[in-house]
């Protein structure tokens, strides 16, 4: 099920866990980096690969315009394909000795 084109790494698993914490929600870059414990230099390329693979889609937050004093943020959402792929990835990681301790606490 899991598409092998994305190399399975610790950071990918960490990002996958953070995203699958709330599979239907919107995720923001900084927040995702804090929750996954992955630094920006790794997080953004991972998210970009997920976008390329069609696992996630991005968008810009809607704002009131005049009232907003800050620029709109970019969010990431999982697609149905992404949910299935990341679910399969985490299942595989649970069986993999390298990632077992990492995924162990993830329900």
């Amino acid at each position, binding site marked *: 099920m899991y598409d092998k084109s994305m190399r399975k790494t610790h950071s990918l698993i960490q990002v996958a866990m953070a995203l699958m914490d709330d599979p239907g929600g919107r995720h*923001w*870059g*900084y*927040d995702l980096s804090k929750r996954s414990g992955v*630094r*920006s*230099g790794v997080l*953004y*390329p991972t998210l970009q690969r997920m976008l*390329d693979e*069609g696992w996630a*889609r*991005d*968008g810009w937050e809607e704002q009131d315009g005049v009232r907003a004093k*800050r*620029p*709109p*943020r*970019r969010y990431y959402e999982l697609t149905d394909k992404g949910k299935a792929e990341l679910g399969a990835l985490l299942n595989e990681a649970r069986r993999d000795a390298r990632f077992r301790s990492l995924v162990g606490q993830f329900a």
Partner: protein
Amino acid sequence: MGSVITQVIAWPTLLVSLLIFGFAPSAVLRMIVLAFRRDDPRRTELLAELPHVPRIERPFWVCEQLEVALFEGLAGRVAALITRKRHSRDRSTQEPGRAHMLLNVGDVLPVVRNVSGFEYADILAEALSTARRRLLIISPFAAKAVVNRDFMARLKHGLRAGVEITIACGDGEDNSFPDKYTLRRLSKLAARYEGFTFARIKNLHAKILICDSTCVRASDNWLAFRSDPDESCRIEVGMLEFFTDRVDERYARYRSLVDDKGISYASQQAGCRRMP
């Protein structure tokens, strides 16, 4: 070396760094994001994220973005610049070369000649590099062996130079072609560039390449002639025509076929920003 380290860790340097990163992280970040390409959404994304970073963490977070910008933004820019330079050099130096002679055989008189299957790769490469006004490729099958990184770079370069490019694929109900990499690459490009049309046409079996005033009809797929590495060399033929009027007529016919019966792949990438 020792004096440099002393300078770096000297109090004035540390104070200035603290002042800049501590009190004006937004200004520093605005400069950092300039390393990303103009169309890179991360330019805006990082600036929008800054207010959500706790004040105490901002200097460190901004420093982290400097690393990202240097390794991704700047590296990406340099790579794009090198590719662009290489392709513009190819275009400007190609006039007397053999490849150029493959397509623009009749600068004055109309020409018709046979084309062998061995010439397909050179003709395709030349068409991508030398097209000035228009390029139309009709190929039922498309595979990543042909639509590779070099192909994509040439295609992008042509689009940036204002060439109108049309690619039509599709064969009956078979969804195995184009393969998913090719489909994704070309769809993304079509969603970004107005001048690029990428469509699927059912029951398509023609193999046509039109580059400006030259039309080449082939017996094999223009975008999949290298799809199977195990396949032995097949005998393929084709016909090249250099007739301005006739090629104009053919181009109009195939474009209207794409406009009327083509299903755009670009709609699948509607979220992408289009480039003018």
